[in-house]
Every structure is written in structure tokens, then in C-alpha cells.
């Protein structure tokens, strides 16, 4: 059963999403990869305003392929999340409640998720053509000079993701694997 989630995710709502839950996200999300994260965190450190409202925001780690004429966006699957680990705790503290990527996260990120209330989702890595069809609009918010790595505001409809790490620190990468291995013993 998939849980339908209407964005934005509040801190309270983030705490109700459990590791292992399959979810369909609808609403506004922002895209950012390493280069954009670096700039966002530099702004926070200087005490400056971020180019979009980080309060209850969900950030998707994606650098899409260019849209063909008539397309909203090109292929748009997740990039590996650990490259954002250095920056995520700062953004979570600032109000970020959802992250979408793939792969492991650091202990520091999980600690921030527990402290403030945030959830880490994985989208299927390498399924960029499929995920693209859930994106209904895309516009550049800032950092256009970064090309594919610019920050975009996306409106998504039923974007399929799986909650991997929840706000209690439960981790599907560990639990899913252990459950499978337990089942074949």
C-alpha cells in the first residue's frame, strides 16, 4: 500500500512517516545537488536569506537531462545522497523536512533528522525516464550558471519514493536487508 503525501511536510508530519513506507508525493519540491547545497549553506553561514523558503521544504537531489521541445523536464532520477551529507544538517536545522536521493547517509545527517524531525526518501536510482513523468512543471529558481545543477522548483504528482530513514533513525537499508536474509535462513 502506498501512502499519499501532500507536500509540504511539516516537522510533525515528518515524524509520522516510517522507514519502509512507500509513499507518493504530490506538491512542490526543490532540486539541489552538491554545488547548489554548497552555495545554500554559505548563505546560511553568512546569515543571508535563502533563494527559496526552506521552512518545511523537501529537496530532491537531481540533475535532470535537458527537456526536449514540448517536455516539462528530461530524465530526472536521484543522485547519490552522501555527497550532500556535509550540508544537510544545516538545512534541516533551517527547516528542511524532506530529502529525496538514493544511498547511505552519515550519522550527522541522521542525528539532525532525529533532533528536528525530517525524513529521508529514496527514489529509484536509474529510473529517470519513469520518474520524469511525475513532474508536472519545472522552473529555475537560482544558480542557472550551474546548468543541470541549478535549483529548480518542481510540481510533482504521485512521485514514487520509499522512506528509507525516518525521524527515529530506523533505516530500511539495514532492516530490509536483514529481513530478507532472515527469510532465507
Amino acid at each position, binding site marked *: 500500500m502506498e501512502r499519499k503525501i501532500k507536500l509540504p511536510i511539516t516537522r510533525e508530519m515528518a515524524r509520522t512517516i516510517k522507514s519502509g513506507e512507500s509513499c507518493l508525493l504530490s506538491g512542490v519540491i526543490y532540486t539541489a545537488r552538491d*554545488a547548489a547545497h554548497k552555495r545554500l549553506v554559505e548563505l546560511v553561514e553568512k546569515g543571508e536569506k535563502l533563494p527559496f523558503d526552506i521552512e518545511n521544504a523537501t529537496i530532491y537531489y537531481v540533475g*535532470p537531462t535537458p527537456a526536449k521541445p514540448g517536455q516539462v523536464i528530461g*530524465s530526472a532520477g536521484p543522485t547519490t545522497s552522501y555527497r550532500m551529507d556535509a550540508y544537510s544538517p544545516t538545512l534541516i536545522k533551517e527547516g528542511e523536512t524532506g530529502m529525496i536521493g*538514493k544511498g547511505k547517509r552519515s550519522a550527522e545527517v541522521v542525528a539532525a533528522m532525529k533532533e528536528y524531525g525530517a525524513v529521508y526518501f529514496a527514489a*529509484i536510482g536509474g529510473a529517470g525516464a519513469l520518474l520524469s513523468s511525475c513532474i508536472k512543471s519545472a522552473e529555475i529558481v537560482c544558480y542557472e550558471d550551474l546548468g543541470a545543477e541549478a535549483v529548480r522548483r518542481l510540481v510533482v504528482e504521485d512521485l514514487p519514493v520509499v522512506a528509507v530513514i525516518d525521524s527515529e533513525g530506523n533505516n530500511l*537499508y539495514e532492516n*530490509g536487508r536483514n529481513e*530478507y536474509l532472515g527469510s*532465507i535462513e
Partner: protein
Amino acid sequence: MREINASVLTEKIAQLAIEANCLLPHDIKDRIESARETEPWGTACGILDKIIENYGIAEKNMCPICQDTGVCCVFLKIGQDVHINGNIEEAVNEGVRRGYGEGYLRKSVVKDPLRRVNTGDNTPAMLYTEIAPGDKIELTVAPKGFGSENMSRLAMLKPSDGIEGVKAFILKTVEEAGPNPCPPIVVGVGIGGTFDKAAYLAKKALMRSTDEPNNDEFYAGLEREMLEKINKLGIGPQGFGGKTTALAVNIEWMPTHIAGLPVAVNINCHVTRHRTAVI
């Protein structure tokens, strides 16, 4: 002596770059589909279904299977009886520039590893050349995503580490990579040579069809054994648990020094892309 113009390479590379990014090779599709048939874990089956649906959409719409359309690896096997008029390297880069532009592929190359400014056209290609007998040129274009490239490792083992050391290093690399390289993965292994040759062999191993085992039965056996061992780790598709962690293990080897045992493991995701043409 056969003569061809370098512009022929440009056209072919542009075409292969687009096709490689949109059309998954048959052997990889077969591997994914047969893994789906034998996968016992429900979550894993769901992921494999989505992966199959994804490459179907990409093929139908001629759009990239994955948004990471990679750094463009180009392998040229040049017959020694061919003369190419023009600059080969420039012709190859022009092919990449055109293919990535006309194909709406992502430009993922930075000019300098530390100052990190995007080159804007996905050049330069990672170019490998080899001289072969004959008057043909074999071109292989292999877009390489970095989710999996970043999880690749190299070790200079001791001869006393032997085959057990090699097996342990391959398993450790896959284990540490876990969910990061988008499993199910294809594992390319290079054994022997020098530090750099081992890495090259591992990359080259990924160019071989997964339907063709190593032509040396000893290494073919090692490929089968390692695939079985990797698929007992339980990592599963996307790391959510399951049997299907790897689709294939391809090993290439070459002679090495009496004092050494270099081993390189180059990982590819389930979007293992390469496209070859002969001119």
C-alpha cells in the same frame, strides 16, 4: 591502405552516444528480466518491475534511461591498415559534443577537478585507443555514470594474498558500496598488469556482453562463483534487500610482475550502457 575522414568518426560517435543513452543492451535487459523471475523478495520484485518499465519508456520515447548520461568513454580499435585524415581526438570530441547536444543529454563534465567549471558540452571524451590487425575501425561508446564509478576501488594485493585475497576484495568493494551504485550492478574486475592497467582492464570488462563468459575456463568459473557470492549478500535492488544485487561479474586479466597482484573493481549500475559500431 584504406583511407577515411575523421568526420566519419564524429558522425558515428554522435549517433552511438544518443543510442547508448536511450537503448539498454539486450543482454542487460535479459539479465534483469530473468532476475525478476527468480527474485524471491517482494520489495525487490517491485523495484525490478519499475526498472523494466523505465527502460521500456526510454526506448519508446528515445529519452535517456538515466539522467546521469555520464562521462563519455570512447574505445577505438583502429586497424593498422587504415589511415584517418584529420585529428582523431578532435573528431571524437566533436562527436560527443553533437551527440550530447542533439540528444538532449546531460552535460556532466567539469573542466578541472578542483576548480570545477562545467565544460558545457560533455567534452572531453575519455578516449582509449588500441591498434588491431585489419582495415576496420571498431568504435564503442560507453556513457559512464558516477554513482557507480565513485564506488569503484583498486588494491595492490600481495602475491601471497592469492585468489582468496582477490575474492575478499571484490566482496568488500560490493559490500561497502551497498545501495549507493544503484544495484542491481554489473561488476567489472581487472586482475594483473600494473596499477593503471588493472583499472583499464576492469573498465574493459564492463564492455563485454554479459552473455560471454571469460574465454579462460578458470576465470569463467571465478566469474560464476563471485556472482553467486555477491548475490548472497542480501543487498538487493536499490539496497532494500533481496537476492538480485548483481547481474553479472566480468573479469579481465593480464600478466603482472613477480612481486604484485593488482586488482581493480569497476562498478556499473543496472543501466550498463555501451554501443558498438564497425566502420
